[in-house]
């Protein structure tokens, strides 16, 4: 399958030379990465290659050691300069995860992290939090504006549940959902923050083939909404059928980036996963 050339190749997210060092371990090593508007980008690599750490760098869960990350017009992470540097006395400036979500990046987690004792609908409503503004006085006073925003948030949440196919489970507890539905709920919750870029960390892990296919359709539907998507996956069929572009991380560094066909044909990728006879198992 060949990549769909995207009509508007405007870069949405640009990462330049992002590195993250944990003590002696260079988990992410000087990675350049660009996501264009409306693109689905796959991020693959052997276990421990630094994929999730890179995700965490993008979403602010982890502060990179160096590099620059720009989303649209906003610099999510970069070198500190001017008054910022004087004020913080740090070499880099970073946004917190909640700020980054507000800027437009939303994510799911490799090991599902829903709010288990909240209902399905409430989980999605929490995602609406950063797009609503009602404060304490408004909540206690309950003016017409409060009721309107609350109603709108609910309508949007229900719409999103419909979108991922969980409409009927709205009042279930999140932890009571089957495993595949929990993954889809996480996606709905992330979509509720109105992101421009959705980061999915192994969205099909633990799913059966039918559920995987459904997830693939869901991701395509999300792209059709105009969102860009980055997917970490180990399921190569999923990646190569879905993505416009695939990047391979190995030991923290980007090995290759290209269309699925290019990546599939590259001998170094196979080597990275399976190792060469001389080096033994590299993963």
């Amino acid at each position, binding site marked *: 399958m060949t990549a769909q050339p995207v009509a508007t190749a405007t870069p949405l997210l640009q990462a330049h030379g992002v590195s993250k060092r944990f003590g002696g371990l260079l988990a992410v090593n000087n990675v350049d990465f660009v996501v264009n508007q409306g693109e689905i980008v796959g991020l693959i690599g*052997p*276990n421990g290659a630094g994929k999730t750490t890179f995700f965490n760098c993008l*979403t602010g*869960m982890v502060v990179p050691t160096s590099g620059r990350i720009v989303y649209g017009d906003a610099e999510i992470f970069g070198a500190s300069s001017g008054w910022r540097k004087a004020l913080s006395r740090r070499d880099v400036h970073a946004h*917190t*995860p*909640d700020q980054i*979500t*507000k800027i437009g990046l*939303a*994510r799911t*987690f*490799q*090991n*599902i*992290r*829903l*709010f*288990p*004792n*909240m209902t399905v609908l*409430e989980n999605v*409503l*929490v*995602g*609406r*939090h*950063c*797009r*609503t503004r*009602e*404060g*304490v006085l408004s*909540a*206690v006073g*309950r003016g017409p504006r*409060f009721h309107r925003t*609350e109603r709108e*948030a609910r309508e949007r949440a229900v719409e999103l549940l419909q979108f991922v196919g969980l409409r009927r489970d709205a009042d279930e*507890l*999140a*932890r*009571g*959902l*089957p*495993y595949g539905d*929990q993954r889809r709920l996480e996606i709905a*919750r*992330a979509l*509720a*923050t109105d992101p421009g870029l959705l980061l999915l960390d*192994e969205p099909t*892990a*633990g799913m059966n083939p039918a559920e995987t296919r459904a997830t693939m359709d869901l991701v395509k539907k999300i792209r059709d909404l105009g969102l860009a998507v980055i997917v970490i996956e*180990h*399921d*190569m069929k999923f990646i190569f059928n879905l993505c416009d572009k695939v990047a391979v991380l190995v030991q923290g560094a980007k090995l290759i980036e290209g269309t699925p066909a290019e990546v599939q044909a590259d001998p170094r990728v196979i080597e990275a*996963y399976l190792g060469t006879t001389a080096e033994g198992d590299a*993963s």
Partner: protein
Amino acid sequence: MSDFPGVLRDGRERLRARIEPRRRPLLVAAAAVTAVAALLPWSVPGVGYTNPLPGDLGSVGLGGHRLYVFVLALVCLVGLTNVAGRRRMATACALGALVISVIALYSLIKQGGGTGAAGVGAWVGTVGSLVLLAVTDTLPTGPPNRLPRLAAPAAVGAIVVVVGVLLAAVVIGLGIDDETQFLCFAIFVGALIAAAGALGVFAAFREAFDQYRAVGYAVALAAAVAFPFTQGTNATWDAVFARVGVFAAAAIGLNVVVGLAGLLDLGYIAFFGIGGYVSALLSDAVFTTVHVHVPFLVVFPLGAMVAGLIGVAFGAPTLRLRGDYLAIVTLGFGEIFRIVVQNWTGLTQGPNGISGIPDLRLPGFLGGMQFGKPHTVFGVSMPFQANYVFLDIVLVIFVMLVFARLNDSRIGRAWVAIREDELAARAMGINTIALKLLAFGIGATLAGAAGTINAHIGESVTPDDYQFIASALLLSAVVLGGMGTVPGAVLGAALLIGLPEKLRFVQDYRLFLFGLALVLLMRFRPEGLIVSRRRQREFHEGGSGADAMSQPAQVAPV
């Protein structure tokens, strides 16, 4: 080491196996014997008892202990029917009858100076209820009964009846002067409440309440307002009620911090104290260094604001801590507050505290309100303490409203999300630091508001009023009543503040008994006495879902 619980269990099993085939005749016989025993004389004529006998144990007839045993024994006959939840109903009543009989037997023997002082009724009643308990224990276990959904007028009627009966029970109970007698009454009511719960009365009540919220709150409000009227000129319980009210308001505030946001605050009483000291200093008390009088309508929001600001200032650096660490820092803060007021003698008079705080006056408010004077309303004259009861009701309504409305908004959902999974909450765009600070600040504000009234009710504030143990008491009230619920916090405060006033011996062993109560609660009803809808599901909806949540999502690479 011998397996003592195992031996007990085996014995219980053997006993069950023997009773099982003869359950019905045995149950009728045991219930009949116990009921008849309640009619027989429980004391022996001619024995000189040290105390006048409670509940008229001397003659033939019903009253006090014996009435309770009689009623409970008859309720046990539900075991003959097919009602779901009959086991819980019958065992609760049999256990209640047994405990009451044993208490009566014990006090008769103790006061009469020997086993001969206990009459035939006491012995037969004890043995009868013991057998009754053994028989009811053989009933099959099952889920509680579910009452059919009530139609509109019946639902409203049910709300009125349940609230009315509870109010009546409280009023009757408080009217019983003798301590043993009160304890028996409490056990009697407790057994009946457990039985009613198994019958599904409270589930139906809750359903009706949810359906007719406005009616439910109106009836509850009417019951609270009716309380001082039932007490007439007797000030004792109005005074206790007034203290329970402010503590309940503070407990609801703590519930925001602990129940919603999940932040364990062990120094919460300090904010209550800050409100109290602000109020005391600005009230022109008799023993104070600051002689200014600021109208209470100004002091009330001022005390709340000062407490709230200090709460935010204290929370800002500390709320980055989690769990145990936060608990220890808040514990320290509570102590810092106490030590500061103890040593800042120039302002707070140190350990002596500020006393002689005048009663509230709200001039120009509804034609001038004097809280220090008794009033006559609808022909019922009430002591001045009743005024504070009414003020407390207004305060609690205010605090409840703030709690309920915040809970049901994006802020409340964000708090719960933080409690559930802080990292995920941050990833969903919630500024966790700001929201935790907000929870802390709102809790402190509500406590400060309650504290300003408490200073006037207690007429003095001293550092000793705000020791750690008071924080622990409030926290116990929240946990006992049920975390995250408003009625739970009120019930918890009522039990923990009110009950020791009635039972002196509870006061002596207060901490021990609270600890015991909490341990038993954690074992048998971890969600608290009154359950929030969310918690109910959290504790009692299958473990399979939770397993799915924690199932590792790792798969091997291709």
